[in-house]
């Protein structure tokens, strides 16, 4: 996977999280994760398809999810109920959507699928290729961005 593919996701995450937390997040250390790994307590999954395809996952602790959802909703969240889960899901939609806008500016036209939220740790996730991982540190907790994208050979050959 090209390292260039993760930068738009980081930029988008910074923009979206800064709007909700009021502070510029910090970037953690880039790492590579095997194509099979287990989720954190809360994980948002969004598919990407087009000239590049794959998946982006945003993992976080339950506490981080509740605090970020609370910031988005403008109220304290003590339980990840349907509304708070919808807010967290929308966070993934905003980050992935903004990232695809940046990818399109680099010549990669892609679309996204409506994101889903996995609640509960230790769910095994399999991706076609190893994921690049970058932790994003915010005052409300950390978000781990996993991006597993590759160029779509069939689309690019067409």
């Amino acid at each position, binding site marked *: 996977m090209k390292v260039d593919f993760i930068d738009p996701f980081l930029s988008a995450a910074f923009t979206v999280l800064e709007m909700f937390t009021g502070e510029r997040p910090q970037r953690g250390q880039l790492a590579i994760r095997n194509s099979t790994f287990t989720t954190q307590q809360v994980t948002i999954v969004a598919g990407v398809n087009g000239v590049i395809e794959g998946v982006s996952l945003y993992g976080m602790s339950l506490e981080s999810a509740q605090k970020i959802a609370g910031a988005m909703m403008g109220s304290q969240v003590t339980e990840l109920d349907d509304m708070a889960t*919808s807010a967290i899901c929308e966070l993934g939609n905003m980050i992935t959507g903004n990232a695809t806008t940046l990818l399109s500016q680099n010549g990669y036209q892609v679309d996204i*699928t409506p994101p889903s939220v996995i609640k509960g740790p230790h769910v095994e996730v399999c991706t076609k290729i190893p994921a690049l991982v970058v932790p994003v540190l915010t005052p409300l907790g950390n978000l781990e961005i996993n991006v597993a994208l590759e160029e779509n050979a069939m689309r690019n050959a067409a």
Partner: protein
Amino acid sequence: MSKRILVVDDAMFMRATVKRILEQAGYEVAGEAENGAMAVERYGELKPDAVLMDITMPVMDGISAAKAILQSDPGAIVLMCTALGQQNLVIEAIKAGVKDYIVKPFQPDRVLEGVGKALGVA
């Protein structure tokens, strides 16, 4: 009489957020829909003054729904409210007759500016 808006988004959180912004500004939310197909159906039933619609939704996406609404009612006022800001999508939406294109995340004022201008009340 306040202007009536149909709010379309698959995310409950976004529908609630947009509804709160609109109602605090004096608009009436005529109804809600969680996908494009439901939006087309509800538009026919409710005949709102404007539609504020997401793009990435299951069943039918927002651009397809906007085209269907504008085909049935060429005078419909439709605004897109989406996390996708690709130039090709913006162009496709504007060509279809969409009045404004609001990119998420947004400040409440951006939504009110778009809706107000589209309805000629800003």
